[in-house]
């Protein structure tokens, strides 16, 4: 057997090959430790042209919406069952919703009202709640056979009982003619802040319970006899072409 001509060179090659393998293992360990960083990023960059388009995103969003609607339906049923147990007078089971087109609107001015394209013949009665996307808009003031007039929450003379779900404090939402109605609290210390949501009281027998109305914009704690708050309504009557009327059966 012949010995290599340069034994030192051979040792050096073996030692270098070992270090290379060691570096490779360390690299993989790093990838493992960083949960795939580098690999996943490279994959994302390379496959970006093949990502699902907007159509698939809408499809997923509609799926999520459907899931939320079914959850909401389930919660409403549960809420109804609990309200029945508590013997609360008006419940959502006795209420039908009817879509109606807005045929005339004067959200500003001396009278703040909407004119709807459905009336007494369709089952609408004075006092029915009118809802827009986002929450309560107002109540039916008068009806003709095929039209009905809505008094908006901002209109002077409009008074609706509301509460703050977070603090469970009740108050009266009074239309002042301006875009923001005022909430007059019944307590001296309502413990509310700007940003709190205002909704119809769950014990309301005239309007649908727990319907959102607006958001507190500012609170005047020094008002007498009790604090007042300016409320920004969620549903904007200026931009609504169709509304939902809750008909009491």
């Amino acid at each position: 057997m012949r010995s290599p001509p340069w034994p030192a060179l051979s040792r050096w090659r073996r030692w270098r090959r070992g270090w290379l393998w060691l570096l490779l293992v360390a690299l993989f360990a790093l990838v493992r430790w960083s949960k795939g960083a580098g690999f996943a990023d490279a994959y994302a960059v390379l496959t970006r042209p093949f990502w699902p388009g907007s159509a698939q995103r809408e499809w997923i969003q509609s799926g999520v919406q459907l899931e939320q609607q079914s959850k909401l339906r389930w919660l409403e049923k549960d809420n109804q069952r609990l309200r029945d147990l508590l013997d609360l007078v008006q419940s959502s089971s006795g209420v039908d919703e009817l879509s109606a087109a807005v045929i005339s609107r004067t959200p500003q001015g001396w009278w703040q009202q909407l004119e709807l394209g459905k009336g007494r013949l369709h089952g609408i009665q004075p006092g029915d709640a009118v809802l827009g996307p986002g929450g309560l808009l107002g109540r039916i003031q008068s009806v003709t056979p095929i039209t009905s007039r809505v008094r908006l929450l901002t209109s002077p003379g409009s008074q609706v009982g509301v509460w703050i779900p977070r603090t469970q404090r009740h108050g009266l939402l009074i239309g002042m003619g301006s875009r923001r109605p005022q909430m007059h609290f019944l307590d001296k210390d309502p413990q509310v802040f700007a940003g709190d949501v205002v909704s119809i009281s769950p014990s309301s027998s005239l309007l649908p319970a727990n319907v959102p109305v607006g958001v507190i914009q500012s609170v005047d704690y020094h008002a007498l006899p009790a604090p007042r708050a300016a409320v920004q309504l969620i549903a904007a009557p200026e931009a609504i072409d169709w509304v939902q009327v809750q008909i009491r059966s």
Partner: protein
Amino acid sequence: MRRLHQQPLCVASALVVPWLTLAAPTWLTLSGVGPSWAVLWLLPWALVDGPVSGMVAGLCLGLVLDGLSLGGCSQLPALMSLGWWWGRLGRRGPPIQLSFNLGLLAWFGSCVLGLSLWLQMVWLDFANSFQIQEAWGWHTLMVQAVLTGLIAPMIVSWLLLLWRRRAPL
């Protein structure tokens, strides 16, 4: 020549007032408030047809417009008074036809109408008289008056010309 109120076409033109009040064209609003269409129609009518006809027209318009609003206060007293006053102005003295004068009369009429509505609201809602402190009433009154005064030279002048041809003095 028959008087203005004896001409069916002229009387029928009053139907435009409730129609425009309901339609409330948004492109003709200032800060969400539209002009007073009743004032814009009543001014030339009363100037041409006299105080009694003006007052009756104010009564009829007021009744229709009160029926189309939420209620609580009425436009009747202001429209009847304006119809009577403008009718007297039209019958006594030189005929009013300058655009500036017509604009000024419409502006003043809209102010009277707005003030009467606002006072009725304050009176009826006396318990909540804090509304007096609110700027909303003044804002609506002034915006409507300015808009009515600006539009009047165009609409009122045209109606005045048309109706004076049909019912010369």
